[in-house]
């Protein structure tokens, strides 16, 4: 159908970004194809040490899911996106396919081994999320291709993560956000994945910050090194949410907080977090 309608047609998932964009005339699709009536596109399954999310799974369903709760960083993300009403409509597949630089899911999911399964006319393909999102609002999806499923590996034993976003109010995009997923062995950090959101064209992986933690005992000194590396890796723009310098400092501070929570969670502690409001 999409190939018949041509490349000015768009698909509609939760619509919580696309409909506002259409009202502002930033998007003006020739046709809208509503995916919401296709059955079997909303599910959360656990199989072979992986979680599978149907593309139209709503944020609210993930927020309420006991399966997703096993990976706390997923719950942090799902429960913090916008507000109740938006979470009841918005979808994980839509969030990734839109690739908004301020979107929450991409920032969280690139810290986990995540694959995006896409369905097109010629069949299916699966690619890592880091290859799926190419640039701001740009993915490798062809115009007649859809996200079918998001698949992520359950973190290994000793895994712990946290996602923190700083927002001016619930319905708006964050000013900056940070996702940290650690694998701990005792007090040694075996592996670290960090992502910064809203401070670049896509979520940024500050490799130097990850390297500062990997193989180390996490002390104030290693955390400071990670913060500094994150501050340098961030590439924000000055806008009405704050100056570039402010956002850099904010992203670094969120990284530190998220590291602290990730360590406690890796040790088996229940730590409840929510997005931080100005």
């Amino acid at each position, binding site marked *: 159908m999409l190939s018949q309608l041509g490349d000015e047609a768009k698909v509609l998932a939760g619509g919580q970004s696309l409909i506002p964009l259409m009202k502002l005339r930033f998007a003006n699709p020739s046709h809208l194809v509503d995916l919401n009536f296709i059955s079997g596109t909303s599910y959360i399954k656990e199989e072979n040490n992986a979680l599978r999310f149907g593309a139209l799974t709503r944020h609210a369903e993930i927020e309420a899911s006991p399966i997703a709760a096993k990976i706390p960083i997923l719950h942090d993300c799902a429960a913090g996106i916008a507000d109740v009403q938006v979470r009841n*409509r918005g979808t994980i597949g839509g969030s990734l396919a839109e690739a908004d630089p301020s979107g929450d899911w991409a920032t969280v999911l690139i810290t986990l081994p995540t694959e995006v399964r896409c369905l097109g006319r010629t069949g299916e393909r699966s690619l890592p999320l880091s290859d799926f999102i190419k640039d701001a609002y740009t993915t490798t999806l062809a115009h007649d291709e859809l996200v079918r499923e998001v698949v992520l590996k359950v973190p290994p034993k000793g895994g712990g993560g946290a996602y923190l976003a700083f927002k001016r109010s619930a319905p708006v995009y964050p000013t900056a956000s940070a996702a940290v997923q650690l694998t701990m062995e005792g007090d040694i950090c075996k592996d670290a994945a960090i992502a910064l959101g809203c401070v670049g064209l896509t979520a940024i992986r500050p490799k130097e910050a990850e390297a500062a933690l990997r193989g180390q005992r996490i002390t104030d000194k290693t955390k400071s090194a990670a913060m500094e590396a994150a501050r340098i890796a961030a590439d924000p723009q000055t806008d009405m949410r704050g100056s570039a310098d402010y956002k850099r400092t904010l992203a670094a501070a969120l990284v530190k907080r998220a590291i602290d929570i990730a360590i406690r969670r890796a040790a088996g502690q229940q730590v409840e977090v929510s997005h931080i409001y100005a």
Partner: protein
Amino acid sequence: MPEAVEKVTLQLTVNGKLHSLSVEPRVLLVELLREILDLTGTHVGCDTTYCGACTVLMNGAAVKSCTMFAVQAEGAEVLTVEGLEKDGELHPIQKAFGDSYGLQCGYCTPGLMISTLQLLSKNRKPNEKEMRKAIAGNTCRCTGYQNIFKAIQLAAKNMNGA
């Protein structure tokens, strides 16, 4: 000028009443409610998915009716503020908002009451944090949130007692 658009047939239930209509596909759910069904209790505050004045329940879930096309509600059960009262009796949430002075200008109130309904239908004893989270998508520009929290607590109490 946009060209004339073919209308689409639509069936949905609003406040318990089944409607069969024919609407342009571009019509938003809130436009259907306000302008076609004349249910003007649902308000449009910002029209940008921010303020929540247009909140209605769709199949039991609070949604912003300005951020959905009417045709997406095909087959759905929609509840608006007009559907809260029963047999001329105000709903306990409506009474509580009045008794607690949980409104000033009243513009955001229909949306807030619907968000309260979603909260209390799942959680009859919300704590302050849960209340804050439940209405985070509803902006009161008179800034009178304290009495709104009192109203939610009173509604919860009255609904538990009922």
